[in-house]
């Protein structure tokens, strides 16, 4: 008797949830999103760009976002759940280029448009729109090595061990290193793209007293400058990404020489635009679209101008300042900062 009661209650609850889900739909497209790093400023900006672009396009009725910390197997699970949810397109930031191949192939087979953003995937049916990660590292490393006069030792602060964006950047860094035979890597560490970890690592290294001439970071940058300033050690040139906090430091910290290389998190919004174009029948000429990075330094006057124009103290310090990509995103700054998708 009691069991039947519980049963009815649970079933009623499920029906209620189902009707709540159905009421949000207003026709047109449903877009699924799969992301596997949570709580990282760059990835959060990417998700907000996806939401803002979906809203600004006016073509998306609902976003279905699977956003959690997991591995390639977990991402395959999320993608298959999105297939079950019958979305029209999936925008995915892959945990691994090859590890989710089967799930992506199943999605394409089910008639879903798959767009990988930020990093490439090996599944040939998927479209890719990505920042050029190898070029990102090459540009910054080359500038740094020139800045220290082509010789000396640098601290190499990488991203997460095993991540494909990190291994692509490593290729670019090594390419630049090969061009400067007198530059040595004094210390190589993985920050895991975590602010606290990166700061601890540079403080530990400063404490050893071994001199170094420059620091290359994979985007964990403003805390490194903080550490140099706080420990009153020599302000060596620092290369980072275009995160709001670091760009602000390049403009304001006395005696700091450095460069920010763009790596827009708004690539997520570009992914939505590409997916909608394909859904509307406009396929791109190539399967892969690369967004090239640019470098802003504070050594020349022209560079200083660029940095001044780019600075945006109203953003969270971990957010990249390049919050839009020309031709690919149409939302306003208010929309991405609000971080609201259709129906929210």
């Amino acid at each position, binding site marked *: 008797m009691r069991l039947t009661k519980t049963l009815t209650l649970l079933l009623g609850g499920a029906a209620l949830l189902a009707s709540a*889900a159905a009421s949000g739909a207003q026709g047109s497209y449903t877009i699924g999103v799969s992301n596997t790093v949570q709580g990282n400023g760059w990835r959060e900006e990417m998700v907000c760009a996806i939401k803002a672009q979906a809203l600004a396009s006016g073509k998306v009725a609902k976003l279905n976002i699977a956003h*959690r910390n997991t*591995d*390639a197997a977990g991402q395959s699970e999320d993608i298959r*759940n999105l297939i079950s949810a019958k979305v029209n397109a999936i925008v995915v930031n892959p945990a691994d280029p090859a*590890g989710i191949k089967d799930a992506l192939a199943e999605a394409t087979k089910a008639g879903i448009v798959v767009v990988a953003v930020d990093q490439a995937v090996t599944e040939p049916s998927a479209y890719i729109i990505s920042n050029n990660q190898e070029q990102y590292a090459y540009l910054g490393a080359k500038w740094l090595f020139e800045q220290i006069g082509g010789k000396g030792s640098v601290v190499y602060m990488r991203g997460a061990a095993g991540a494909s964006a*990190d291994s692509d950047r490593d290729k670019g860094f090594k390419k630049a290193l090969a061009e400067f035979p007198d530059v040595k890597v004094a210390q190589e560490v993985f920050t895991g793209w975590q602010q606290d970890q990166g700061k601890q690592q540079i403080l530990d290294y400063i404490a050893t007293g071994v001199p170094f001439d420059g620091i290359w970071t994979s985007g964990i940058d403003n805390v490194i400058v903080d550490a140099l300033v706080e420990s009153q050690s020599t302000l060596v040139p620092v290369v980072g990404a275009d995160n709001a906090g670091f760009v602000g430091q390049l403009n304001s910290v006395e005696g700091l020489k450095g460069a920010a290389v763009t790596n827009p998190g708004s690539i997520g919004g570009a992914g939505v635009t590409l997916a909608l174009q394909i859904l509307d029948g406009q396929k791109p000429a190539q399967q892969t679209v690369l967004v090239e990075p640019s470098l802003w330094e504070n050594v020349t006057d022209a560079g200083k101008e660029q940095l001044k124009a780019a600075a945006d103290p109203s953003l969270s310090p971990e957010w990249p300042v390049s919050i839009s990509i020309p031709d690919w995103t149409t939302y306003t700054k208010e929309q991405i900062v609000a971080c609201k998708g259709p129906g929210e």
Partner: protein
Amino acid sequence: MSRFLRNNGWVTGLFALLILLFIATKIIQPSYGQGDFTSLVRAVLPYAFAVAAQTVVVIAGGIDLSVAAMMALTSVTAASMMAGASEEYALFVVPFVLAMGLVLGAINGILIVVSRVPDIVVTLATLFILQGAALLVLDAPGGGAAEWLRGLILGTLPIPGLPESITGWIPNALVLLVVALCTVWIPLRRSRLGLSIYAIGSSDLAAFRSGVPVARTKIIAYALAGLFGAMGGLSLTMSTGIGAPIPGPYLLASVAAVVLGGVALGGGRGGLLGPIVAVFVLRLVRTDLTLLAIDPNVTAIVEGSIMVAVVMFGAYITMRSRSS
């Protein structure tokens, strides 16, 4: 029948919950069917092996924090050995990796028994060691897997004489899971060794006084956990076709499913079926949350709340039935 229900009340309750969830899923997404169920089982696989590993150790009165790292190490080992190798070579890789898990698990057990350092400390240390070793084997995700091995978890099992509408609900991944777990668990449960594992989990002093070789049993329990961990690592390589050196979210998930599955964290009580059903419940909840497009920052809270609610509800029922 009523005796079976009384003895297996928790598992029966979990099954009921699972069936309710399937009904709810069907209401949320009327097209939910055979293909989606196959996807669910493939998602369950690595979690199921992780939870099997944790279950054996918890029943023996310990805890294994190195489960996820063990899976990562065995997965990258399998993937790097199979990369570019012939299909037949995988016939050697599979038993090699399973043996490796067994040995590494046994080392966990030996360290605990010999050093007398608590399980939680030793396995925390091995977590870091195995994680580092995984990065030595492959510093970035890569490697490969034999096609026949990957095929084992694809599609469904055709049974002659049965129509597609029934066999469509028997994914090969489920068959593999059941066969792999039963091959180890059923003989174990029926043997003296199995009884000893429960005995040392209940009270190692009482077990010792009854003539149970406590140290040996504990080492074997950890070795079996290593074996299940290696199966989990292989299942990761099978489902992704690569090995990834950074451990996935399997450690906490394994502890969660053990608790939800009715295994006492103090040891000595519970079985394997409960935790496995619990894994299905947890994965299906994740599916439903995705189908409902719930705000992703809320889903983790929902998953956690459901777990606490179920465990508390179970404890309440157990207390009531005891007092009556």
